């Protein structure tokens, strides 16, 4: 690696990450793995697709995350009649000033929650995914660069398939991680219900307790630090080995492309920083492999009929792909 991280920088970065994690934990009870993965995506400068049934705190997580770094937060509820201009923005003719004015859409923000992204038709999805990829919006021929940090957290619901437009594989590939939120364990759920229901009117999500810790610019610094986290050749080979194994693995219809390997290494770096290290280990890779690859691997129909998902395949694969030994 060309850039090395000083002790001091590492310490501060680790502390900042730990503090953000702790602050999010004040609003989001439990789900530590999900929080870690979302933080990792933020530090790696990627976007996240969150899948989970309604009512598991997806929105709360995003709002809490936005609050920790004082970033702007916007939310789009995707519906079948949502148009690309509703996402990116549009120009209007102002009769008083006799000029065209540009109205910026909700994408001009730091954190964008695209709720139920699979409810909007393909053209709207494509508009957002283009913004995610390019980091800029073109309205009436004029390009507007989005102010970094920019992160999209899209959610989708795994149970309702009627009236939805499934994201194509190529577009799924744009997401760094696909995070699955599952029902919390009993103890966490008790704590959560207590926290929300106690001395509070209504069930409004309360992120007041989350203290803003850093500025959006600091997030950019953190992202630069993550980019400098050392990846040993062995670890890199391990990641590539995993990604390559998905292409030939029994039960996989189509495996992950090289972008999967890149995503895996990027997220493993961020995970290493969150763990307080300035170097990645095979453990980081293995820990992030499910989230980084599950949306890039398509199981064969037979495997799906048997009730297995790409997660099952990847878990089996991770057990068999030899970890590096020095």
């Amino acid at each position, binding site marked *: 690696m060309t850039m090395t991280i000083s002790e001091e920088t590492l310490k501060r970065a680790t502390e900042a990450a730990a503090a953000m994690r702790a602050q999010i934990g004040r609003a989001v009870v439990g789900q530590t793995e999900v929080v870690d993965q979302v933080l990792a995506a933020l530090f790696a400068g990627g976007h996240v697709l969150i899948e989970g049934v309604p009512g598991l705190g997806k929105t709360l997580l995003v709002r809490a995350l936005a609050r920790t770094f004082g970033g702007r937060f916007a939310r789009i509820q995707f519906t079948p009649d949502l148009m690309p201009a509703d996402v990116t923005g549009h120009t209007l003719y102002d009769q008083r000033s006799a000029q065209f004015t540009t109205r910026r859409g909700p994408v001009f923000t730091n954190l964008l929650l695209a709720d139920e992204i699979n409810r909007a038709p393909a053209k709207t999805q494509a508009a957002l995914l283009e913004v995610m990829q390019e980091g800029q919006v073109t309205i009436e021929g004029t390009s507007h660069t989005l102010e970094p940090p920019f992160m999209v957290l899209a959610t989708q619901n795994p149970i309702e398939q009627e009236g939805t437009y499934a994201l194509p594989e190529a577009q799924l590939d744009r997401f760094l991680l696909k995070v699955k939120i599952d029902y919390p364990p009993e103890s966490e759920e008790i704590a959560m219900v207590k926290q929300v229901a106690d001395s509070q009117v209504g069930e409004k999500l309360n992120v007041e307790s989350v203290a803003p810790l850093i500025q959006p610019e600091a997030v950019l610094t953190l992202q630069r630090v993550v980019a400098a986290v050392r990846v040993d050749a062995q670890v890199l080979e391990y990641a590539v080995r995993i990604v390559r194994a998905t292409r030939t693995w029994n039960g996989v219809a189509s495996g992950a492309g090289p972008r999967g390997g890149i995503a895996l290494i990027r997220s493993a770096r961020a995970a290493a920083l969150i763990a307080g290290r300035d170097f990645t280990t095979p453990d980081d890779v*293995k820990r992030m492999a499910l989230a980084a690859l599950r949306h890039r691997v398509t199981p064969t129909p037979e495997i799906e009929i048997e009730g297995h998902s790409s997660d099952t395949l990847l878990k089996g694969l991770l057990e068999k*792909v*030899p970890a590096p030994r020095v």
Partner: protein
Amino acid sequence: MQPDRVAVVLRPRVGWEALDLGFQMAREWWRPIWAVWFALYLPVATLCLYAFPNRFHAILVLWWLKPVFDRAVLHTVSRAVFGEPQGVRATLRAVREWLPPGIVMALTFSRLNLARSFVLPVAQLERQRGSAARKRNAALGSRMRNVGVWLTVVCSNLEWVTLFGLGALVQMLEPAAGDPGPDDESPDGSFWGHFAQWGLKEACFYIAAVSLVEPFYVTAGFALYLNRRAILEGWDIELALRRLEERLRASSGRIAAVLVLAVAAGFAMSGTQPAFALDDTAKSAHDEIRKVLASPEFSQHKEVTRWYYTGKSKEETKPTELPAFWRALSLLFAKGAEVFLWIAVVLLVAIALYYLSKFRPEPRLRNAPAYRPPDALFGFDLAPESLPDDVAGTAKQLARAGRLREALSLLYRGALSSLVQRHHLPFDPGDTEGDCTLAVRMKLPASADYFSRLVGTWQAMAYAARRPDADSVERLCDEWRPHFSPAATT
């Protein structure tokens, strides 16, 4: 009734076929039937329309009086069937004959009888009343009532279809009729409101529809009734016998004389008294008949429907003897098949035993050699022979010599070897350092902290090229023994 005078072919029919016969009858005698119908129905209808300013009420009354007109139709068609076709005048003159029997019931309790046209002949032609009528209806309706009910359903639907069809036709052809205006809405918007608004036109449509359908309905019900009686009373057999009798009567008197002579001779030879019949009075014959009828054979009547085999019996399908050559060939095949089957059974049993022995763990475990840990794992040589006797001591020497990497590698390898060989921790090829630490934490919690420190130092050196300080490596060497040396007790 006299079956020999019936103008239709009587034979046992299924209900639906009987309905067809009824429709055919209505078409055959359409003149007298519709003449009587219109002669009665049209005046009454006109009267009703005149009497009730609300046309719907008039239609309701006409509907209610349907059984009255039905009777006239039935009278006409029954006379026609039994070979006495009557004109309108004769029918109207005979009103005392066809109207009174059971008319009160027909217009009150029985008005909503669903098999109305089927049971009408019982009241009108047989003149049965009260419980006798009920019994008769039950006997006749035991298998055919459902057909009568369906007839009612179909005919009432047909009436409505005709009514609406006529309405729609006129609506289409009427030049003045355009889009339904607000006047077409019922005053209160309800279902009945629409009916209350019926005008003369709609009433005429109703009268036309009923006039078209009702005579068919009555004749079909009557045909169903006739068919049921023909089945129950064996009219077709009776007719056949009568025809036979007529043919005999028509043949030459000589045959009759011969027959009489033969019968007389038969009586004479049997030794009975020739005056046999003369001795018996009518009374004794009556007693005899009653006795016979009281016997169990006649006391019950039960109709049973069941399937029975009408194909060839077994005797008929008995195989013919084969020629010797074919017999030998078939025997050869049979023997061959038997041998083949036995071989298959033996093979199946052998396969079953093989799999049973393969998947039954216990006997194998008993005979199995003791767990033999792998000598190499993760590319490391983990065999105890490949390691120095004193791992910690050797590592410390290496550390002191500045060869920290070798020292740490030896410690790590020694620890893994100990875990695999002595503690039998199963490691997969995909297990990372983190997984190993987790396994140690589960199995050897006392050594977990040390092991994770060792792994952490090792990782920092391996993946971050970070050279650990010699002191910490030496400390790791010192602490190694209690956890992983062969002498250590855990």
